[in-house]
């Protein structure tokens, strides 16, 4: 097992290097971030030149990549533009934990991401719990009464839910539960932000503000996953060992919960494990609509300013999460399913 994990980690490293090269190449298309600096009072050309040298943007792209990756603190760089390197390099490189500074705020990238990450994770984890519970419940219910009226209605609803654009769902939910509920004099939900400034940062406020974004994030996933659970439960229920258990007189509830569900849940675990990091990406649109101060907003704001150390940081962290979750899913799968042997 441990050799398997080590081998997978060993495969992950070149993969992440390839990803970083792809992303860095993409970043080059941004052009010169200094050129668009200071829209109202643009700096003098010689200042821009100095800034470019300070940020290392005067170097060819492959040197910039290596600096980003391993740093340049063992060499001297030419800061005053006379062609003679004199200032020692400051960068340590990603491999030694230095993700660079944001071009916009000059703060370390990791620190800025760290400020936003808890907000995103709060949404994600809540949404993921809601998704898992509801898709298991709906999928099981449908599988136990296949082709009944309720099952058919749920199937139709899930197809619609699965086809819904995130923003359409978000706007609809806001329109119904925030705008119209207020119009009708019902208790209505807030639409944007995390807290009401007038009330302050209370947990109750936070929960109220989380309801709509979490619903937006989960409804579309539930639509897809509950169908998946339904079909895998149906498949398991037709197996011989289920018939045997039933023939022995085991109660239906016990058969379903003890025999059918664990077996049907296995592929579901894989699906969830592989999808979790991508849910992070799905938060971009949701965070924008609900003005939620998370990583998605951070990404959008800094895309507009061509802040490539920041974008590299966010994208690499998400890619690392994707790769790690792939490994975790496989390992976890072999723990819960003794039939799987990892070598």
């Amino acid at each position, binding site marked *: 097992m441990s050799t398997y994990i080590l081998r997978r980690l060993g495969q992950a490293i*070149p*993969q992440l290097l*390839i*990803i970083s090269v*792809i*992303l860095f190449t*993409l970043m080059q*298309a*941004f*052009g010169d971030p200094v050129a668009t600096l200071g829209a109202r009072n643009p700096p003098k050309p010689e200042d821009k030149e100095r800034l470019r040298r300070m940020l290392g943007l005067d170097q060819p792209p492959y040197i910039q990549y290596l600096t980003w990756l391993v740093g340049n603190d063992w060499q001297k760089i030419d800061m005053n533009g006379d062609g003679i390197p004199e200032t020692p390099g400051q960068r340590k490189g990603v491999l030694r934990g230095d993700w660079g500074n944001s071009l916009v705020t000059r703060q370390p990238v990791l620190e800025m991401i760290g400020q936003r990450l808890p907000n995103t994770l709060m949404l994600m984890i809540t949404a993921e719990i809601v998704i898992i519970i509801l898709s298991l419940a709906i999928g099981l219910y449908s599988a136990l009464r296949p082709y009944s009226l309720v099952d058919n209605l749920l199937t139709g609803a*899930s*197809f*619609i839910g*699965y*086809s*819904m*654009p*995130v*923003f*359409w769902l978000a*706007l609809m939910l*806001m*329109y119904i539960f925030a*705008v119209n509920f207020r119009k009708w004099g019902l208790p209505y939900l807030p*639409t944007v932000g995390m807290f009401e400034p007038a009330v302050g940062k209370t947990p109750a406020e936070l929960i109220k503000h989380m309801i709509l974004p979490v619903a937006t994030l989960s409804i579309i996933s539930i639509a*897809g996953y509950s*169908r*998946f659970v339904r*079909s895998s439960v149906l498949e398991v229920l037709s197996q011989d060992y289920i018939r045997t258990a039933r023939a022995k007189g085991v109660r239906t509830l016990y058969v379903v919960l003890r025999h059918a569900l664990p077996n049907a849940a296995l592929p579901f675990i894989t699906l969830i494990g592989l999808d979790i*990091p*991508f849910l*992070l*990406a*799905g938060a*971009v*649109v949701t965070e*924008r*609509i609900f003005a939620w101060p998370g990583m998605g907003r951070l*990404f*959008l704001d800094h*895309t*507009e300013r061509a802040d490539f150390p920041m*974008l590299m940081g*966010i*994208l690499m962290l*998400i*890619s690392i999460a*994707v*790769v790690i979750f792939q490994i975790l899913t496989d390992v976890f799968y072999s723990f819960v399913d003794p039939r799987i042997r990892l070598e």
Partner: protein
Amino acid sequence: MATTTSDALPHKETTIKPAVPLSPLVLGVRRFRRHRMAMIGLGLLVVLILYISFAGLASRGYCAPLKQDVTGEAWANCNDTHLKLQPPSADHIFGTDVIGRDIFARTVYGGQISMFIGVSAALMEVILGALVGAIAAYYGGWIDSLLMRFTEAMLNIPSLFLLIIGAHFFGNKLPSFNILGRELTGGVIIIILIIGATSWMYLARIVRANVLSLRERDYVSASRALGATDSRIIFLHLLPNTIAPLIVSATLGVANAILSEAYVSFLGLGVQGATATWGNMLDGAYRYLETAPWLWFFPGTLILLTVLGINFVGDGLRDALDPYSTKHV
């Protein structure tokens, strides 16, 4: 194949045409037509295509800024700022947008562009996916490793981020151009290229897996022995035999491309300028959530219906053409 008409056709026809083997195509069409959801989806799509093709005939009115009656796309682009943010009425059945353009006319012409983007991007996805998958599997060795490592790396970067960055970098750097007598912003082509370039990876893996098993078949060895070139084997023997996943991916790819365009445009990074798409009609519409819900309701619902229809059809196609594949949903 041993399948004959006698066991596959309704009893009425068995006496008329005995023992004609049914082609996979005929069988597929038959299975598709029995798929209730797929037929509903197809009906929905036909209605939508009729809507974007012919509803433009009803797009006409008096354009005050131009001081004349206009029809067609000119009406969709006629901005009468005195009539901005009008709720749906007899003159403007879907209302007007922030600069007073008729939303009904814009959903018709925007729908054409959205469909064009969807179909072209899906086409590009299929071409890229099929080529990468087939070349990787056919040549094997270091070519396979290189292409597949690249594919996996691309798969591990969430594509929405790639889309946003791509749209931001390359957006609106192409000049406008004329196609079929219509003025299109260069952004349309950019968005097609970006969506196509970020969506081919799954298909490449499916095609690679299929071709890996196909290339060991006898007919491939036979045609290689006859001196067929690699490209002839790939395009004439290998890819046609993986047509089922290609068709299914192409269909579902149209829906994904329309959605991707809408996401990118919703974030304000999509097609800019006068050219309407369902996506860019939504750009900024969330600021009018309360005051002008018709701004986002109509284009958003059209996107939902199109994606729904395509998903139904794609699902039916998968069941009909590729009965052994596992369903994802």
